[in-house]
């Protein structure tokens, strides 16, 4: 084998290897859409975060606008402190409502942001004051049963 064909093969090998890496990065992973280079951190505290995990998406109107950076327990208020990293392309009013929602019946949980009407925008380090906790299925069921039990004598 002379050198030129060998070089050609090695070039071909390196090229398809890099193409495979690019395929993994762009098509399999979310390099193009999901990881934001520039973002700002906003805090929100919840009574109950359910099954929310770090790196869960933050969505507004169904569009991914950020990720959950970290989740901590605040021993002073006994609430969950969630840090959200939001893409700096998107600014939200300071009275934005953060809700923990579930995609589908059994899907993963994410933070939904509902923009308010304030003139002032959220800055890095701000706290979202109005939050709504995750819906815990057991609580819903027990509430439903209590309601039924309370209704039963009245119906008689």
């Amino acid at each position: 084998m002379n050198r030129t064909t060998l070089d050609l093969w090695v070039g071909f090998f390196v090229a398809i290897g890099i193409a495979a890496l690019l395929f993994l990065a762009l098509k399999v992973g979310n390099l193009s859409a999901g990881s934001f280079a520039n973002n700002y951190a906003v805090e929100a505290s919840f009574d109950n975060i359910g099954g929310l995990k770090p790196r869960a998406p933050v969505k507004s109107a169904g569009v991914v606008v950020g990720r959950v950076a970290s989740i901590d327990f605040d021993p002073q208020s006994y609430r969950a402190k969630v840090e959200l990293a939001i893409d700096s392309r998107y600014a939200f009013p300071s009275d934005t409502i953060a809700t923990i929602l579930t995609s589908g019946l059994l899907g993963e949980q994410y933070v939904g942001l509902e923009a308010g009407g304030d003139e002032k925008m959220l800055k890095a380090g701000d706290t979202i004051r109005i939050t709504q906790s995750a819906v815990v299925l057991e609580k819903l069921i027990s509430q439903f049963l209590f309601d039924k039990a309370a209704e039963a004598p009245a119906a008689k």
Partner: protein
Amino acid sequence: MRMIANVLRSLGHRAVDGVWRLGFIARFLAMVLLYSGQSFRRVHLTIREIYFSGVLSLLIILVSGLFVGLVLGLQGYETLQRYGSSEALGVLVALSLTRELGPVVAALLFASRAGSAVTAEIGLMKTTEQLTAMDMMAVNPIARVVAPRFWGGVISMPLLAALFSAMGVFGGWLIGVPFIGVDDGAFWSQMQAAVDFRYDILNGVIKSVVFGVAVSLIAVFEGFDCVPTAEGVSRAITRTVVSSALAILALDFVLTSFMFRG
């Protein structure tokens, strides 16, 4: 009494021998790194080794990647459809390939396909006294023979692992979408939502680089260290495959426990 003494003696001999080999392999790695300047200055030496260990391993890597992906697709669908979430098939296939199966299985195949060949080549060179002859001609055998083979393996391994993962994802898609009928859009979009570039893919690439260094080092070391007889070369090849496989799996556990702890 003598038997117990013999057992103790052989145990001690093995322990000392193991420590000696560990020290020698560390010194050998330092020598390879020290003399690897030449394998980049005379780059055709390294390119030749990339051809032998990388390009010639392409076929086995691509075919096994495809089959691993096909099996993952079938098995994953079988389990996921019980929970009515067969759209998550893409997530399952992509995560298991990029995090674990891609680097590990590609490295195991690489060790048995390319690592054993490198050991055999260097071992035979030693047996036929070519290495000594080089030394006589003031050509450093580590710089001329060992370092290009080492770097050829280190460069080939991440590319082969990426090809394995890409081929596996394609295999999973082939089973999931055209064959079983999972929705194409859901397959890709759920995969893209779940697979993170830095957390999953980059960690997989780091794993494959580490495995590449380990396998290449073991392969060139076993060849260089073999007993220069026909039997010694065959033993060295066996040792390459066995200790590479053990090193890959043990390193994989260590790396995984650092990377994906929570």
